């Protein structure tokens, strides 16, 4: 018996001595001091920073928030077309939303990555490793790009250039457009010193920051800075800066050229040869996207329509020129009518159009992936095509589907495939259009036409003659940008910086109704009103969420257009 007591007591005292019982280090995480002494982990840290540049392959693409695609919902992305956007609900178009929110409200995400970069730049002051200067330059480029993303949305934002810690009580104040622009230019210039000139699209480093990408960012930044929304006094020097930045690019980086075929420029998997793309976000089959399945209709099992679709609008389709280079429609005092000179036939609407229409939009009778699309309904409503929304609510109601970025016939279409079509941030055609626009504003219309025509020639559409001048040329220039850069997250911002949104984004959105006569089989086409749109002038800029204003205790003012 004594033995038992002894052993119980012994066990008791043994257990009591076990003081380090609670000292357990985490088995699934790395600690701070390990990270900043290991070059591989530091590189990995920098890798994640690039995620601060969001790609546009979202369930709700930005296209449906402008006049490229139709959006019929009244929540999420729908608050933009319905005009019910406010500081209270702007979070529902946040890029952190499950739909991707059309990459619109990026405040929270942007500042998260800015802090990541600020912390990186801070830690790198004491790190000694190979490639250090280039890594710092990469981080600064990404920071500059993120600040640009903020600036085009909000017009003025706080400049945060250090990583605060949890005990900080700092609140923030927005800096003016010019101040933020200056900050971005400084980052770009500092980055350029140590960045490599460029990478080919087949290079293992393609997708990392380069001098050419930095110059392209500069070109876009200066173009925006010169635009009416941000250049109220129409300061001509700003247009000169925009022109110079674009021209410098064109003269310096002669490695780039327009890719011969417009459609394949966008629908090739990651890693293919592409002479036009300057900077893009690449993907792999393990780190890819499902953009085709979010956009193609029910034919391939896609959910497109359920998510209120990124179905292209009739408004967009109408804006494609005829192949002969003439606009299919003319606008007169806000009223649209068929351009009699163009040869456009409203009952054969897809014939002889700018080839970029077929490359960007799937319409009735389009052949895509070996399938002929059918968006018609019979005159007695007893039968309909497989791609009509009556067949399935997952077909877009507009009668069009997105074709740009959609994979070619060799790729399987299924939810189980992850797609790797890159998301293009910068390509040469944009630089040409930037240059054309700046030169137009400087009065050099011939240069403007020359660069537009380079793009039209590649597309295979009639070029602009020297008879197109003045406001007429401006309209064609703007439309060229709409068509060439469609779905690439330009239109939303272009309409705003041109101050045209109040006109364009107040127009109702249309789709196409194709009726097939039961007896004759003949199809008739009529535009169909789908949704009424509302744009209020506040919406030129995005509001900052109410909660964020409040958290800053009064120092952070609401975005200019939203101040009461």
């Amino acid at each position, binding site marked *: *018996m004594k033995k038992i007591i002894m052993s119980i007591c012994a066990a008791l005292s043994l257990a009591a001595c076990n003081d380090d019982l609670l000292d357990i280090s985490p088995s699934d*995480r790395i600690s701070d001091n390990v990270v900043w002494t290991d070059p591989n982990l530091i590189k990995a840290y920098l890798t994640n920073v690039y995620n601060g540049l969001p790609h546009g392959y979202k369930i709700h693409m930005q296209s449906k928030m402008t006049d490229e695609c139709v959006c019929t919902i009244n929540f999420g992305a729908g608050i933009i077309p319905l005009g019910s956007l406010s500081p209270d609900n702007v979070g529902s178009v946040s890029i952190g939303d499950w739909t991707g929110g059309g990459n619109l409200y990026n405040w929270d995400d942007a500042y*998260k990555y800015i802090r990541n970069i600020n912390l990186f730049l801070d830690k790198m002051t004491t790190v000694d490793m190979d490639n250090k200067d280039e890594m710092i330059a990469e981080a600064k480029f990404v920071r500059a790009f993120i600040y640009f993303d903020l600036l085009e949305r909000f017009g003025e934002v706080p400049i945060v250039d250090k990583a605060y810690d949890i005990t900080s009580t700092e609140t923030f104040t927005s800096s003016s457009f010019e101040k933020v622009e200056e900050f971005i230019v400084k980052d770009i210039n500092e980055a350029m010193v140590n960045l490599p000139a460029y990478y080919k699209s087949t*290079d293992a480093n*393609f997708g990392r920051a380069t001098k050419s990408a930095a110059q392209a960012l500069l070109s876009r930044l200066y173009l925006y800075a010169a635009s009416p929304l941000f250049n109220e006094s129409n300061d001509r020097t700003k247009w000169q800066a925009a022109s110079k930045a674009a021209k410098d690019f064109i003269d310096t980086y002669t490695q780039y050229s327009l890719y011969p075929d417009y459609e394949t420029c966008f629908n090739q998997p990651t*890693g293919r040869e592409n002479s036009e793309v300057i900077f893009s976000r690449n993907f792999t089959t393990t780190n890819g996207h499902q953009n085709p399945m979010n956009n193609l209709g029910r034919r391939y099992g896609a959910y497109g329509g359920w998510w209120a679709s990124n179905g292209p609008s009739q408004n967009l389709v109408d804006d494609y020129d005829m192949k002969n280079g003439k606009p299919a429609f003319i606008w007169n005092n806000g009223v649209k009518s068929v351009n009699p000179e163009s040869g456009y036939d409203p009952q054969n609407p897809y014939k002889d159009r700018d080839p970029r229409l077929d490359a960007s939009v799937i319409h009735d009778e389009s052949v895509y992936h070996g399938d002929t699309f059918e968006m018609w309904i019979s005159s007695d409503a007893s039968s309909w095509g497989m791609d009509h929304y009556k067949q399935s609510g997952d077909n877009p109601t507009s009668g069009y589907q997105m074709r740009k970025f959609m994979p070619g016939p060799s790729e399987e279409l299924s939810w189980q495939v992850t797609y790797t079509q890159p998301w293009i941030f910068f390509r040469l055609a944009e630089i040409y259009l930037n240059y054309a626009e700046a030169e137009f504003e400087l009065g050099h219309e011939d240069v403007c036409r020359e660069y537009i025509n380079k793009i039209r020639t590649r597309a295979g559409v009639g070029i602009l003659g020297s008879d197109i001048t003045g406001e007429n040329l401006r309209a064609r220039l703007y439309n060229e940008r709409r068509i060439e850069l469609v779905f690439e997250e330009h239109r939303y911002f272009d309409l705003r910086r041109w101050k045209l949104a109040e006109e364009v984004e107040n127009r109702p959105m249309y789709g196409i109704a194709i009726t097939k006569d039961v007896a004759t089989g003949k199809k008739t086409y009529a535009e169909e009103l789908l*949704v009424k749109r509302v744009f209020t002038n506040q919406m030129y800029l995005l509001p900052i969420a109410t909660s964020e204003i409040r958290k800053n205790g009064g120092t952070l003012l609401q975005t200019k257009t939203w101040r009461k």
Partner: protein
Amino acid sequence: MALPVMAQKRTVSGTVSDPSGSVIIGANVIVKNTTNGTITDLDGKFKLEDVPSNGVLTVSYIGYKSTDVSVKGKSNLKITLDEDVTVLNEVVAVGYGTQKKATLTGSVATVGGDDIKKSPAPNVGSSLAGKLPGLIVNQRSGEPGRDDPSIIIRGAATLGDSSPLIIIDGVERSNMTRLNPEDIESVAVLKDASAAIYGARAANGVILVTTKKGKEGKTEFSFNFNVGFSNPTKTPKMLDAYTYANVANESDWYSKGRPASYNPLYTDEMLQKYRDGSDPILYPNTDWVSECMRSSALQTRGSFQAKGGNDKMQYLLSFGMLSQGPAYNNYPERNDQYTFRINLNAELTKNLSVGANISAIFNQQKHTTIATWINFSNIMISSPLLPARYPNGLLAGGRLGESPLLLDQRGTDKIKNSPVYSTFTATYKIPGVKGLKLEGSFNYDFNNQFEKMFELPYYYYEYNTATQQYDKMNGTGQSTIALRDTYSSWSTMMYNFRISYDNTFGAHHVAAMLGQEQQRDTYSSANAYRKNFLSSSIDQINVGSTASEDKDNGGSGRKTARNNYFGRFNYDFMSKYLVELLFRVDGSQNFPSNKRYGFFPAASLGWRISEESFIKDNYPFIDQIKLRTSLGKTGNDKVASYQYLQTYSFGGNYVFGSTVNSGIYANTMPNANITWEKSTKFDAGFDASLWNGLLGAEFTYFHESRRDILAARNLSIPNTMGFPSLPDENIGKVNNNGFELRLTHHNTVGKLFYSVEGNVSYAKNKIVFMDETPHTEAYQDLTGRPIGSQLIYKADGIFNTQEELDAYPHANGTQVGDIKIVDLNKDGDIDSDDQYRFDYTATPRTVFGLGGTMRYKNWDMNIFFQGQSGAYNYDSQFASLGSSNKDNAFKKRAENRWTVDNPNGTMPRANAYQPGNTTFFMYDSSFIRLKSLEIGYSLPKELISKVSISDLRFYVSGFNLLTLSKDIKWTDPEISGQSLSYPQQRVINLGVNLKF
């Protein structure tokens, strides 16, 4: 001054025994109105000196009626104490020991296993609803195997996890709800400071489950078997095709800006076809709920138990099984469960006894490969315009090509879970010191879970109007056969040593206990994935494609530990004045080393005022009244560990060229000062029994103040800081108070025995401080309001006319037929400043239970009602009607909606716009349910004893039989959030009990 005449004194001795003649050890014998007293010895004898010759002795013992005996003329008394049925002689588990209910000073609610067994609910957790004052049980789902209710004690008092600590046979264990109800001896809930014995985990209260043990006597076999039929308590009615299409037209017209000339989505001709069903292929009218629902689901449950033993050894062997099937067609769902238990106690020597309690649960669940909420979206809100099956029998695609009738083609998610719980105990009474003993236990629990998620491609048919053929379409899910095997294992090892002392010195009773406990937990998991199986015939990982892009694997692991010291001291004087002190020093690995240990003390006092003569003499109808109060500190450490370190995780990969580059990212910002939440609990109350048990009452008032509540400062730190997620910090302050009342009545009238028991609990919390920046309007502050209260717009009906709309402020996008939102701050704008804090949440403030038992001859009946009030629910699915995502809506929502033709409608228009949630759709979820009803008949003993059967009983019982709901009449009122979940089940059950 004259000296009083000294009374004559002498010595009196005697024996105290119960009515059967057995002696009573430890009975109190005291000279009335003096402090002169003693207790009876091991032979029930006592000897008391200095007793006045005409004195009266008061003899009392817990569980017996105390009695007064005159000593006049007697020197050797034979005293018999009658059993007191009213003063419960039961013992109550209080953590590391038990106490007699009568001398308990803490606030502990208990329910016996017999009471739990009465309910045919497959889940033990559901059977607790309404049974225990202070325990709030809310059943939110009825899915077999996934029907665990939410259980909290006295409402929420923290901003984080408010779930209680669950201790089964001394160890923190999961699966309480999966226990075999036949194995449960009792469930006790420590609500007040008495929980402090569990220190840092006790602030949310503690549930102690004690399982049955063997008992001395001839072996008793018992056998139970029952069969139940279950179906949903309430299934919402959805729109038929005709109404749906009309609603769709309305909402389409609104979104086009209400044009004067309108081509409807659905023409009158089409509407007619939907209505008359003349074209079931193109114009069907599908009632998805009836297509999918079975008339009932089958549930069977059986158990077998043997117990017995002798004075040296007692044993219990128990086996139980439960099997549940799906309530829906083509829905691969099952829950099969087998439980085993062996409980042995052996007295090895006079002073040393050992015990083992080993139990296991073998649980096999089969579920669909798709998340339940998706399945229920596809059942509930599929458009009625989609065919479920074509007239020729072919199955159609349904919503998103995910018709619920296709679920059985899409593979299964099988989960095998087999936890084994073991407890080994030893008690050694130290010879020579009366009442001193050493106790220890070693517990080792392990659980292995193997999950096999086998996903199959599926197909359906779609009618092609052009070819008039049925095209075979591939489903939207997997296009190849894919399998993921996940193996997870958990272990818990716990030692615990206690030294305790329990003795009585005259009228003084002293008990003390000191102990230490150490616990180590581990978790590890690994998984393997392959796709592109050639065939679905073998669901093993090695059969899948060996191509590297078709394979994937993963895994993770975790370790945690605890170290604690605890103790308890009890003192009572003649079972009249009661004192308890307890403490725990708790070490939790969740905190940095300098913040790891906390000290949690508690004290409680009791006064059995009914033992005082001024009560005894004057109020003979009082059996017992005990006043009690307690005060103590407990902690809560339920937060993520390692928050004091800045750590980085792998992730945030990015592609350069055509290669994925690994990334790392910083986790939550570190908080070097993180430590416990602290709770101070104060309780005061009384227990009473009157008129020989005709009325029993227990009342407790409580106040809890929770401080240093761990919460993230999400509401005040600008996102512009760019922090990755914020750590928990000890910042919140919450007060919580309320009361519990329990009343009992039992009586026998002739051959009818009956008892009634009711309880009601009320708890309301208030945030005293929380991290928030001041709102523009004070009515938006969380401070001063309950946890979880949401900002919401106040609705005032709808805008019936354009004039009304024009006359009142409204948000952009508002049209006639939309909800009228009150401009609370009267600034002429409807914006977020007009939202106010809604004081109620889905957690009820008041819960109640009312039960009755009746026995008459061979018949018995048990009935139990349960309910709640002070809870509100916002169901966003209910709010949605005619939205562009083409979902179906609730019939109740569409009725009397505003339309151009129904301008006086009371419900908002189709596709209504509201800038945020409004009170329009906030509904009171008060209800009262007939939770269970059981009627049994036992065959007469004289009949069955001939075949050596001691008890044979047949019964019929029901669960969730009837629900009366205040506001929510279209679905089960106990839901939280959207009604897109597996509904709560009503069970009708037939069974038999057999004992021999």
